[in-house]
């Protein structure tokens, strides 16, 4: 009984982690940017969806769409206002640009976080689930919303896989992650590939944020932990490796759920962090990292 409960709850949370981490790792893989405003963009999406439904009386679907749209806008803002100016700057030495991007996106994330807290308080917000109610799965009372979350996450990840492996644009993105110089030599515009990647990132982070808002709820305090969790999943899976991130998301998700059920909810995140430290010792490139 408890095993089944862990299996169900763990799957939903892992799928959500996977979706959140995929966009994060994709951006890193393709453009070498570690976007530390990731958590802020996810929270922004959820808060926008909440505000649309709660303050402007829109229906749940429109609210969710607005949440995702806001995340896409925020992703572009991150790219054009923070990342690109640093990358193009002549005053910042090339070898320091990564650190500048890291710091820039971190500060950008804090700005978003404070703005959310200022306008919508730092108390948690929850998005009204698209599907409500519960179903009985072999004696386990499971919210329909939890199943919906898992299904949407898996679908979006599958669509992403199709996009990357089966379309021309996707192949260009993949190529850019392998060899950016090669891509430019083939006559493809690296800049437009980056824009595509940031758009995909915005959609992924937006969907993950809105789903998280429906499933558990978010507050401006969630910004740090969400970035940290995406970061550790991506490091565990291997920086830039999408499939590594997927595996790592399930490892972390289940480890947390097992800890919460069998030991105590208070120690939820600790074993996953210990595992991260252990993996860094034994296999610094992560589970499926290249190099």
């Amino acid at each position, binding site marked *: 009984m408890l095993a089944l409960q862990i299996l169900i709850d763990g799957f939903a949370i892992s799928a959500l982690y996977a979706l959140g981490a995929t966009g994060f790792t994709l951006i890193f893989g393709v453009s070498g940017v570690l976007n530390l405003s990731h958590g802020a963009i996810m929270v922004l999406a959820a808060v926008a969806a909440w505000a649309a439904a709660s303050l402007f009386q829109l229906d749940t679907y429109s609210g969710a769409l607005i949440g995702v749209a806001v995340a896409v806008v925020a992703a572009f803002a991150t790219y054009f206002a923070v990342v690109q100016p640093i990358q193009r700057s002549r005053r910042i030495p090339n070898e320091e640009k990564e650190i500048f991007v890291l710091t820039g996106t971190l500060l950008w994330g804090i700005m978003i976080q404070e703005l959310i807290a200022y306008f919508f*308080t730092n*108390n948690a917000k929850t998005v009204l689930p698209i599907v409500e109610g519960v179903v009985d799965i072999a004696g386990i009372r499971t919210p329909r919303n939890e199943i919906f979350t898992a299904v949407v996450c898996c679908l979006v990840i599958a669509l992403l896989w199709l996009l990357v492996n089966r379309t021309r644009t996707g192949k260009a993105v993949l190529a850019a992650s392998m060899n950016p110089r090669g891509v430019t030599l083939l006559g493809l515009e690296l800049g437009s590939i980056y824009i595509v990647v940031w758009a995909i990132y915005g959609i992924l982070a937006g969907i993950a944020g809105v789903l998280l808002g429906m499933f558990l709820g978010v507050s401006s305090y969630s910004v740090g932990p969400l970035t940290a969790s995406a970061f550790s999943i991506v490091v565990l899976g291997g920086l830039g490796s999408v499939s590594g991130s997927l595996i790592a998301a399930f490892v972390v998700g289940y480890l947390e759920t097992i800890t*919460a059920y069998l030991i105590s909810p208070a120690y939820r995140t600790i074993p996953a962090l210990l595992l991260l430290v252990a993996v860094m010792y034994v296999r610094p490139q992560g589970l499926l990292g290249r190099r």
Partner: protein
Amino acid sequence: MTPKFRTLLGATALGLLMATGQALAADPIKIGVIAEAQAIAGASIPQAAQLAADEINAKGGVDGRKIEIVTYDNHSSSADSVRAFQRAVNEDKVNIVIASYISEVVLALEPWAARLKTPLITPGAASNEISKAVHADYEKNKYTFHGYLTSAALAQSVCDAAKELLVEQRHMKTAVIMSEDAAWTKPLDVGYEDCLPKIGLKVLDHIRFSPDTTDFTPIFNKIEGSKPDVIITGISHVGVQPTVQWKNQQVPIPMFGIASQATNSTFGKDTNEAANGVIYQGVSGTGVAVTPKSIPFTDAFKAKFGNFPSYCGYTAYDEVYYIADAVKRAGSTDADKLIAALEKTDWIGTIGRVQFYGKDDPFTHSIKYGKGLITGLMLQWQDGQQVGVWPADVAKAKLKFPSFIKVTSN
């Protein structure tokens, strides 16, 4: 010009002169307000304090002295609060400080009130340790006043209500305590553990969880496993998430107890109305005439800020009034004289009759709990509204639960 008119003109001129003279001579009474302006509960503190000050000033102030509120947002942080307190006293020269609903913050400020010899009063923190420290070292800590019920009194208030509402009316027998791990819940839990069995509710389990918990599924799962009739809550830092997940997961057990976020009228929207059915303790509440001042205050607050106040809005509003009253009685804002006057406070506010425990009581400088003073209320979210359900003399509504709740009334 007739002589009569000349006299009138002269009198007016004299009056005007005197008025300006008085305004120049009388310094304002400066009250610093350090609060969690970004949190649902804390946001009401500076708003309510300002409302009270505006009302007092509109009636001419205190002996011609206006009340000036100086606000500081502490971002829910103790370190920010200490810096704000130092700035309030040393630079902004406030006479007294109203601060915070978080016990950790008030406990961090208490020694600073002693060091800087500036009276401090909290509208919403609950930890017993705040007033116990005053009792333990009166000369040093006499600057701190506890303008809200102690955790011990809160537990008692919840038990008093539970006895009537749950045990006598609904024949409930068992409970699980669910509280967040924070300074204020330690004495609260001790109080619950002590008084729940006495009223006839056996405590089956006691779950303390981290205030940064986001997924409450395992917690509700564990609670359901012990099959209690009711969940007795002690939550303040969290509120929206456990409530929404309680509804989404259709946990069939009612929640009853302290849920600070539920005291704010925006809680319904924040939870997408998942709040319906939640029963929570308050010192006062929307639409409940605890005293004749309660409803005019909530109406004025709503008219000015668009929403009803949280629990610490009521206390902050009362505090500004009884500080003004104490300044009037003391005839001064000198710290020692003000403390002596505050100790003699006997003020009918929005939450009841406010008096402070004395030097020899264990909770020195904390507001007195009991019939005829402050007893607290129980309220419930019903159909998106907050309604009073206890005590019967002021709160008329009956308990009402959403369909997924299975209330035992055997």
